[in-house]
Each structure stands twice: as C-alpha cells, then as structure tokens.
C-alpha cells in the first residue's frame, strides 16, 4: 500500500519560507519550535554559484528511530496512513526522541514540556485538505501524494 507523503522538488524551491509560516500558523507553534525549516546550500565558484534550498520536516520514516527510543511507547507509525504520531498525553518530555532523530526533525516545546513534530497535517487530511505547507508553496515545489 502506498503511504501518504509530501514530495519535495528542490529544483522548484525558492527558499521563501511560506511553508514554514504555514506550519507555524496551522500548529500555532511558539518561537523556538520549528516543525518545518528551510535551509540552503551554496556551492560553486563566483560568479558561477549554485544555491539549493531545502524544506524539511519529519520524514515519517518506515522504521522511526524516535519510536524505537521512546520509553513510553508514545510514538507510533500508523500502518494505514504512514504518519508517525506522538501521543502527547503520554509523552513525559525526556527528549530521547529529539536526540535519536537522525534528521533533527523532532522538536521540543519547552512551555509544554512535550516533544512535537510534523503530523503531516493529519487533522487537515481528515477533512480532505492537503497539508498547510503544500497548500501555500510559492514555487510549487511541494506536492502531497497519497
């Protein structure tokens, strides 16, 4: 079965951070908690420079390291949707998952003392909408595939 995911095309990403803004708004994230982050990589020699932008968030891994290390088994991968989810009420804020994520995608909300990350906008998906970041992408670099 094909699992839902966000397909990202770096050729089309313009580094505008609309996806970041949409993510902050959709999830009402406090300063310091960035579930989606745009980075860039510069290469080449002046004046033949090359800059590639990347928008990244949780990759909803097939074998999520975060889930492996969680002492409370609060992180699970939904076999139907492929979404890696955190049951926030169970999370004890130990940050093992933050350390374990090889992509730096697991965030920590100091105010709530909870781990958090991209949910693939599950509440939106359930209403038949696409993820907020995909919706606003100015360079049309992101696509939602299911």
């Amino acid at each position, binding site marked *: 079965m094909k699992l839902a995911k966000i397909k990202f095309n770096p050729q089309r990403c313009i580094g505008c951070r609309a996806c970041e803004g949409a993510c902050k708004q959709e999830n009402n994230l406090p300063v310091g908690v960035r579930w989606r982050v745009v980075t860039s990589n510069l290469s080449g020699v002046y004046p033949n420079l090359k800059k590639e932008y990347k928008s990244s968030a949780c990759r909803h891994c097939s074998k999520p390291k975060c889930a492996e290390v969680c002492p409370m088994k609060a992180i699970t991968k939904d076999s139907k949707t492929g979404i890696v989810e955190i049951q926030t009420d169970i999370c004890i804020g130990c940050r093992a998952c933050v350390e374990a994520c090889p992509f730096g995608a697991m965030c920590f909300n100091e105010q709530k003392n909870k781990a958090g990350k991209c949910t693939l906008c599950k509440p939106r998906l359930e209403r038949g909408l696409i993820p907020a970041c995909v919706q*606003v992408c100015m360079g049309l670099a992101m696509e939602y595939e299911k």
Partner: protein
Amino acid sequence: MDHSTRIIPTCCNACGGQTGIFAHVAGGKVIKIEPNSENPIGVANTWDDFLVEKNRGARMCPKGLCALKQLYDPDRLQKPLKRTGENCWKPITWDDALDLAAEKLNTIKNKYGAESLLWFSEDHSFTHIQQDFCKAFGTPNYLNHSNLCDAARKAGFKLTLGDERPIADLANSRYILLFGWNPMAAIKWAYLPAALMSAIDKGAKLVVVDPVFTATAAKANEWVPIRPGTDGILALAMGHVMVSEGLYNKEFVDNWTVGFPEYAKYIADKNPEWAEGVTGVPANTIRRLARELATTKPAVVDTWSGVSHYSNGTESTRAIAMLLGLIGEIDGKGNLLLPERVQPKHRKALTQWPEIKAQRIDGLGTKYPFAYKSGIYVEAKEAMLTGKPYQPKAAVFVFQNFVMSVPNSQRNVEALKKLDFILAIDVYQSETAAMADLVIPGTHFLERYDLTANWVAFPSISLRQPVIKPLHGGPTEYEFIMSLAQRLGLPGFDLPYENLLDAELKGSTGISLDELKSLPGAVWNDGPTRYRKYLNGGFATSSGKFEFCSQAMADKGLNPLPRIEVKSGKDLGKYPLALINWKSVEHTHTRTQNNPWLMEMQGNNPLWMHPKTAERLMLKDNDMVRIESATGEDCAILKITPEIHPDAVGMSYGFGHKDIGSVAKGNGINVNQFYEGKAEDISGQAIVKEAWVRVSKAGVNEVGQN
C-alpha cells in the same frame, strides 16, 4: 474546525501586494489565514493562466501567513497617546484625541496657512479619504510611499512605452532578462514565483543582472554580477550590439517608434568594451546576451528597485526599456504587458472645498518634471529644515515610519524636530510615532475596509473587509480621519465609509459593495487579457509611439536620450565600497520586525561582503565591523559570502529598530543612516541604494549603536 467558524474572503496587507486570503474566524478571534484562489494575486497575472492555475489553488508568502502574530501582538498601541514631555505619554480618550488634533490643525491653518500641513501615507490603504482630507483642509502636500519605492521606474517606463506600471508576463516567456529585480524574494505579488518557475519548466532562459546572487539568480540559467548603479550602461551597450549587428526588429522600429536614428547615433560608440569598463560585465557576455535577447521570442525584460533607487534611476530604466523597443516585444503574450486596469472611482473634489492656490512644497512637477503624484519625501524633509520654499508646521504620518524609511535617518529626526505638531497613526509606537505629539492606534488589515485594484493584466478589483472589530476598541483610521474632518467643519465627510466605497465601486465596475461581498472570494474579475493594444490605440506617450528619443524630456530641458551618469563616491580612497540594500522575503519595509515568527526566520541583517574584499581588508566571518559613510556610522556583524559583487557590500532593509516593540528592538542596524538623502533629478525618487562606505574591524568594546 467547528461549525461556528466563519470563513471570510478579504485581502492581505502585510505588504502592498494584497494577496487574496480567507480569514477563519471563531469565537470572535481570527484563527487562520489561507489563500483565496478567486483572487488572481496569488494565482496568475494573465486571464488564461488565471483560469487554469486557480484550480491548483493560490499561493501566499510567509509575511501573510504570520500576520496573526501582528494582529494579536501585545506591543500594539491600544489607546491614543498624548505627549506630556520627552518620552512621556498620557493615554487619552478618542474624543479628546480628536479635539486635540482638530485644535492643533486649526491653529496652524489659521496662523500659517493650510499648506503648512504635510500628509504622508502608505499607498495601498484608504488613500482616497486621506487625499480628500488634504483637499478639503486646503493643503496640496499629500505624499505617499511610492516615492520611496518605484517612482523612477514609473517615470522611466512612462517616458518610453507610456505606462507607469507595466507588468511582466513571466509564465509565457521564453527569454527573461531581469535587471535589479528579485521576484522570488521581494515578492510583491504572490503569483510571481510560480509564474517564473512555470516559465523555467517550459524551457525559458532566465538571466538575472544584479550585484547580489538573489533567490531569483539562484534559479537563473545565468547570474550576471554587475557594479551597483551601472545597469543602464549595460543596456546601452546591448542596444549598441543589436543595432550594429542589425539584430533589432525593423518592422516594429519603423512603425511604432520615434527617435531611433538619434538613439542609433547616440549608442554608436557605446560598445561592449566601453561598458565592460564601467559595469564590470565582460564584453563577450554583453554581446552574447544582446544576441540571445534579440533572437528568442517571446522575450521579456523588466527592472525594479535594484536599478531605479539610484541617482540615474529614471535614465537607466529608460535605457533598459529601450531594449524592448529594439526587439519589439511589448504587450504580447510572454512580454512586458501594459495592463488594462479599473480603479475604484475616486470622487471629484467637492465645490465647497477650497481651490488650493499654494504651490507644493516638494517640487513635484516643477523641480522634478516627471515626478509621480506620490511627491518627494526628501524635499519635504529639506523644507522642514530650511523653511524653503515655505516652512511646514505640522505633519500627519499614516503607517509611515518617516524616521526609519527615508534615507538619512539622522537628518529625518532633525527635520521632525522643526515641526509644531506631529500626528502619527500607526499600529506601533514607531520611531516616528515616538517623535509625535499625538499618537493614534492604527488597525491591522483584518480590521478594516479597502478596495484594491489588482496588479494583473486584466481589470480586477478585490475587497478588503473587516473580519473582526478593531481590537483597540476605537475607530479605524478612515473613521478617525472622517471624524477629524467633521470636527474641523470640513464638508463631505458625514456619510459612512461603506457608502463611499459603494459609490467608488459602482462608478468603476457598476456593481455595489454588497454585490462585491457576495462574489466568489469577494473579487470582481473582468477578463480577458487583451494583448498588443498599441496596434489600435498606439502608446500613451506624447508621440503615441514608443520613444527612443523623448520630446517631453527635451521640452523640460533634459536630454531626450538616456544620459546615464554613473556616480562614484566623492572620495573613493576614503569610501571605496558601494553600500546597497535589499528587501528580504520575510519582511516588509520597517513594519514587520516585531513579528516573532518572521524574526525567527530572519532576525538580523548582517553586512554581506565578498571573500576577496574581506581578504584584502583582513576581515573574518562574524567579525563585528564598523561601517562608515559620509553620512553615518554604525557597527554590524559581517557575513562573508561570494553572493555579492566584490565592489559592493550590502544588507537587508528594515532592521535596527529603537522603538516599535520588544521583539524588534535592538536587532540589526538601520541601513538608511548611511545614505545622504537625495532625490533623483527626473522623478524625485528617493535615492535609497546609493552610498559609499569603508568597512573596518570594530574595536573590542564597540557593539554598535543598538
């Protein structure tokens, strides 16, 4: 989302782009902003593309998506504030604020004449009612933001192809040549990035001429780094190649232009080798670009602030526009388009309003013969300081942070000190509001009305409407201004604002305000896009044709051909580097730096310097450096990067706040302190990118003024 959530169509105003949005309101609170695909600004700028692309939804930029952080910003002004001493303020009632403003303005009018009031406004928000106020009060001195933005671009294009704001059809072009324009970050219209990416997908070649390796240059086939302020020279040399090699469009030139022989003679000696010496762009590159541009169709050439914010802004824009005259690629699909727009119909001056006999204070139309109606900010400032041609006594600033946004901030402060009365209307206690005698809390764009003529290539008007009442509990700006007019006994301000909008709409589109509200997305669109309209109506220039040689310029004693003087520092030995600045995608001018989400994305503005330059100056990445120009000095963090021309240094605009709010304060430095504060000769455009500086390692104890 529960069922009580209302979804209301409106327009963003986080910048002047005015993207269509839907506001989600629940329990009296705005909880979300989403894009509105009925509004072309987030979709496409030509009719056919709009109809297709809207099915993919609309786009939005981070400024709009983070706008709720400004709406609910605890640092927003809540109550009218009256100055009681230096940095001392007393909250007063709205009634008392109106009484105080009316009394002060009346006194000044009676004593010094109405023209001693200067009015500064943003250019996308309730401008008509402000202009009406000025007319009814009797002052000719209404100025707005456009003078700091694209006044020289307007003049340059108006003089050549007869349109003040041509817009590029990027999506359908095969060859896109941009001078000093970064539509991928200085986005303005949310459709731009997708349009450009769509052209690239279809195989278009994108060439970006810019001293900075911008986000647009990063997507280009070719980045052409150029010395700041020399773009017009490059354009003249490209013209030389096209003419000398016979590559220009003879049919177009013969039938639709005037002044070609004079132009051809003028550029006969302006060859690529000459231009290489000035611009730093290799002569071979110039030849190749000229040949490519002349032989690829459809082609589009466009230019914005990276060219027009210099002392040769209008002339350079003219020289660039002339490339379009040579290739004959104007107003066709994939070209620079001359848009048909319908504006809300501004009411005529009422007969009871006085005839204004006083001359303008800023030389609009006189000293600056091709100035836009937005006036000349730096001349208004000089008048405050010198009393010439007469002494301004009062100023009203509506969303205009004059201190921060007009070049030469120190002098701006000195100028404002000369006034008897300053009224500032703003969302924040800005650096300008901090100098006011009376500060009035402004609204967020989700709290007010406006009609917006969209910048697309077909008639389109959208509605901004209040989705909640102003949080401060007071009137909107336009209501405050109308009440003020009534207190002053000025006629014509007694109807509700909605009635005025209704009349403006009916007068231009035939539909009512209620009808506009009920249209999908609250947008009135009237396609199709019509192309090459000049074939029937000619160009809106004085000759009716595209002008290589301008009689209108000659009539004003100016050179009819584009005479491009490249200024260099008065003392290059002392100040060897050109200081430029740019707008970043995360911020709008000086007004978004208190937004914690946007500041998280970009919270500072380090000085960019090329590695070769840094090596010569023995500077290292992250050094604290001292920047000195003839006008100002301050310290900044250094960022060493090959993304900037070795002869230039630069930083993004809008930072270095000393007021506004807790988030903004103390982050980065204000680039405007380094500029002299002059206006461009022809259009009066404020020169906001032309200064020369020296950069050195700051002393151990220097940490900048902030």
